[in-house]
């Protein structure tokens, strides 16, 4: 199997469409025959990252590369950036506004969930310029 690449544009502040990219990746991975556990890890991490683009960054882009060995995801946005990545990684810490919390988001579990379900996670963020997140899940 040669590597498969997928690209998604995620619109900002549109909660009715949030999760579409993750749903598409889930169907693709299932169709390719990845194990349910592998699919679950990728999809939970990607959904959280996708929601972050919607809530915090005014949208962004997602690139996914699928190989037999791993799934690599790169999420880029031109949002406000993350001033304190270490703080943002703590369970329960959230800067989500009240209107977003009323939808059930803002538990402060987004980045911790991504960390938990990926094998590699790297965040490059510059305040005022944007954030790029690199994620990798190995197919064990």
């Amino acid at each position, binding site marked *: 199997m040669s590597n498969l690449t997928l690209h998604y544009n995620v619109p900002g502040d549109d*909660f009715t469409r949030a*999760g579409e990219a993750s749903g598409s990746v889930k169907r693709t991975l299932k169709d390719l025959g990845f194990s349910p556990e592998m699919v*679950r890890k990728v999809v939970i991490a990607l*959904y959280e990252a996708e929601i972050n683009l919607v809530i915090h960054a005014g949208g962004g882009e997602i690139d996914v590369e699928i190989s037999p060995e791993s799934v690599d995801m790169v999420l880029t946005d031109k949002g406000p950036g993350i001033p304190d990545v270490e703080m943002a990684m703590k369970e329960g810490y959230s800067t989500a506004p009240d209107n977003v919390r009323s939808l059930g988001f*803002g*538990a402060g*579990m987004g980045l911790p*969930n991504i960390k938990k379900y990926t094998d590699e996670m790297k965040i490059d963020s510059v305040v005022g310029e944007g954030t790029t997140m690199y994620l990798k899940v190995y197919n064990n």
Partner: protein
Amino acid sequence: MNTKQLVEKLNLKVLVSGEMEREITGGYCGDLLSWVMGRAQSGDCWFTVMGNINAIGVCVLADCACIVLCENATLDDNAKDRAEMQGVCILSSEENAYTLATKLGEIL
């Protein structure tokens, strides 16, 4: 036990039938979507009051067997449409999550 049997045993209303014979292997209670997303297991019956479109997405991605809206919580129109489109089973009860979950625990 499958979702059809769950409806009978817990006296639930069916809001969206979806995949009605999906096997239920456990249960999870929660309303914070990321919390549920990261911890609910595949095959869980998810008890919540969150009836919006994003809850449908979480149910699909976390691979829960069904959603039970507790205490007659509202299912949004666009959430109903999405659930029908994606085959998600949405059930409803006037009882709270604790009561429903304890009943599920007895019959699983």
